[in-house]
């Protein structure tokens, strides 16, 4: 077992113990923490995929999710259907959006300086946000859905259960991505491209096609996340922005290319935030915990990762 592996296990165990302790003190904090972890992880996983393989920090990540949410909202409103029924068309449209965005813009910057992609996606984020703002205005939108306030009562505490869909979504994304990367030919190709694009083309991989598909898969996943997101939260043109940074932070905390660790990191962050909020007047400091933990995790890894 390498030092890094050991650290991961230690972290996971520590997280587990903390969760149990918190559960004894304030059970609902654990429930909400886990739910939030599900949300964080399901948004961060698609970013991790793109960052790990295409090596792009996609600053339009949150905006893409926002666009997906609006697509589902518009579909649900126009057709009078339940937003969750919009899942399939939105996912397909987002897949195509991913292809188009990649081909039209990002693919043209792969040869330029690295940071250009950062600023390109910043520009794309701006365009997406502003376009939605012009079409839909800044006024938040939300469809009122009965099942979103579904609740369970254990003993004398009631808590919302709908958010467990995010936990399921995160688990499904992780499992799906894992199977994709390990078991499919395309996934293997993607892994190879992620490690060495020049090496990949000489073993017969179409690198641009792989990049395109990976980016499109990430967009499609955002289509799914965005749909669930809009059932639960109000949507407005700037709603995605904070999730870009949050996802990026999570990916960095987990270590680039390490998908399972994203889930662990999300649990650590989600539960600690919930724990802080469970302390009276602790709420204002919960973002501090979020960012403090990220710095801590990154610093610890750099000290453990040692030399060279």
């Amino acid at each position: 077992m390498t030092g890094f592996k050991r650290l991961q296990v230690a972290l996971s165990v520590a997280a587990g113990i903390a969760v149990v302790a918190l559960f004894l003190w304030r059970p609902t904090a654990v429930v909400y923490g886990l739910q939030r972890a599900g949300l964080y992880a399901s948004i961060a996983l698609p970013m991790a995929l793109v960052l790990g393989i295409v090596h792009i920090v996609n600053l339009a990540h949150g905006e893409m999710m926002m666009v997906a949410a609006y697509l589902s909202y518009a579909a649900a409103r126009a057709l009078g259907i339940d937003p969750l029924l919009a899942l399939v068309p939105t996912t397909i449209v987002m897949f195509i959006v991913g292809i188009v965005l990649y081909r039209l813009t990002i693919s043209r910057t792969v040869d330029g300086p690295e940071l250009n992609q950062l600023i390109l996606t910043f520009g794309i984020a701006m365009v997406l946000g502003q376009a939605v703002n012009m079409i839909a205005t800044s006024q938040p939108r939300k469809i009122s859905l009965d099942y979103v306030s579904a609740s369970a009562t254990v003993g004398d505490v009631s808590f919302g259960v709908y958010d467990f869909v995010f936990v399921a979504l995160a688990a499904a994304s992780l499992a799906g991505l894992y199977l994709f990367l390990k078991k499919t030919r395309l996934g293997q190709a993607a892994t190879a491209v992620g490690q060495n694009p020049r090496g990949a083309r000489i073993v017969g991989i179409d690198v641009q096609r792989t990049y395109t598909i990976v980016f499109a898969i990430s967009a499609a996943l955002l289509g799914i996340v965005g749909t669930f997101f809009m059932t639960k939260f109000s949507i407005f043109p700037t709603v995605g922005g904070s999730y870009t940074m949050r996802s990026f932070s999570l990916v960095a905390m987990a270590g680039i290319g390490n998908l399972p660790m994203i889930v662990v990191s999300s649990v650590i962050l989600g539960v600690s935030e919930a724990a802080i909020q469970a302390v009276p007047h602790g709420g204002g400091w919960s973002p501090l915990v979020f960012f403090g933990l990220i710095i801590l995790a990154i610093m610890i890894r750099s000290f453990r990762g040692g030399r060279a």
Partner: protein
Amino acid sequence: MKGLQTEALTIRFGGLTAVDGVDFSLTPGEIVGIIGPNGAGKTTLINLLAGIYAPTSGRVVFDGEDITAVPAHRRAALGIGRTFQLIHPLEDLTLVENVMTGFLFAGRRSLRAAREAAAALCRDLGLGGLNRSTGELNILETKKMEIAKALAVEPSVLFLDEVMAGLNSTETLDVIRMVREIAAHRNLGIGVVEHVMGVIKELTERVVVLDGGRLIAAGPYSEVSQDPRVVSAYLGGSV
């Protein structure tokens, strides 16, 4: 004690002991060959001596002083120069600027003085077109630039890690001549890592052989090359 000595120098990466209890020395004026199979620990040894890695155990002594804890940039200033097996030119700097860095930082010269010294050094090594970007250099020039960069720290010991690899024999002979001149004029101790035995034979007075991180043989090349352990681990039937 002039020069560089190590005592039981050891480094482990995870479970792998890349350099294992090596006692090695290099004194000004001598040229020593460092040979051994791929993965034997030659480059790692140089990295330990240059301060890129900190050893797991053991000591490095330079001119009589223990420098085991001295960081790389100060070792360069003390006079330990080295080239890199995988050459990474500073690609945002021109040829002469690449060479300048050593004079600037290890030698603490002024910009102007460093530029002049670098230009002179390049001229000595037969490098022209000083303001070319490093991408415009051919391999021979790149290798010469690599040597110039190592010399720019004004070393008293110098390590050349496969600088002849990838050169044809004319070019190799050219570089061998150059290294000889450098050694003679500057009174350097030079450690040479090469897999081309012709070079080792031509250039070195003494050879150390590493295998699996351990020093398995030492002596003149003519003796060492007959050592059955060296033949089986390294040379094979080819020579």
